């Protein structure tokens, strides 16, 4: 099982903030494939400019291995201040 978290407009697009996926996909790429099947609107939004992914609270670029229990967050462009 892995947990997936969404922030900002990604949450509005998907209609959820957090979900658990079982069985765990083996990689970030596999997770994205699964998202494309289940939530095509979210999948499109994830491909937009400036969307970043974090695995276990560390930003990742490209693909990453997902261990069981991993926490994956997808974050649209950040805007503090």
């Amino acid at each position: 099982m892995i947990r997936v978290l969404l922030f900002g407009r990604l949450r509005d697009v998907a209609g959820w903030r957090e979900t658990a996926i079982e069985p765990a996909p083996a990689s970030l790429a596999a997770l994205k494939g699964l998202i494309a099947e289940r939530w095509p609107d979210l999948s499109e939004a994830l491909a937009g400019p400036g969307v970043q992914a974090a695995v276990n609270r560390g930003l990742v670029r490209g693909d990453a291995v997902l261990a069981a229990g991993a926490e994956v967050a997808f974050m649209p462009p950040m805007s503090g201040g």
Partner: protein
Amino acid sequence: MITLTDQAFDPGAALTAFSAGRSESGAVASFLGLARGEAGQSTALELEAWPEFTAPEIEKMAQSARQRFALHDVAVIHRVGEIAPGEAIVMVMTAAAHRREAFEACDYLMDYLKSRAPLWKKEHGPAGARWVEPTARDLADLERWGS
């Protein structure tokens, strides 16, 4: 010190606390970001954070500023949740021996917070709500620091 709070805060009280007892820091710069009403077009801001990630990321930025500008001290207070026009959204304070370092560190931290802090800002108004993203100017400002 990094503070994320869902309560309104008093910028003056924060500045008094930050600047008290400094007999070797000649310079304290601060920046205070307030929610603009946009003449009625913005009725509230909603700031979303992921506290377990947002606070450590801002702490990293603050430590980077501390080293780069030889700061004596640095503090960031960031509101999260719903914010009314005129209320403080963010406050950055920097203390250094001389003014140039204090100013530049404050400027640098604000540029980073605007485009690199894990926070998401939604503006509510009479015409509905929209997510705010960094402007071209915000991104150009960030590029000044060369990273």
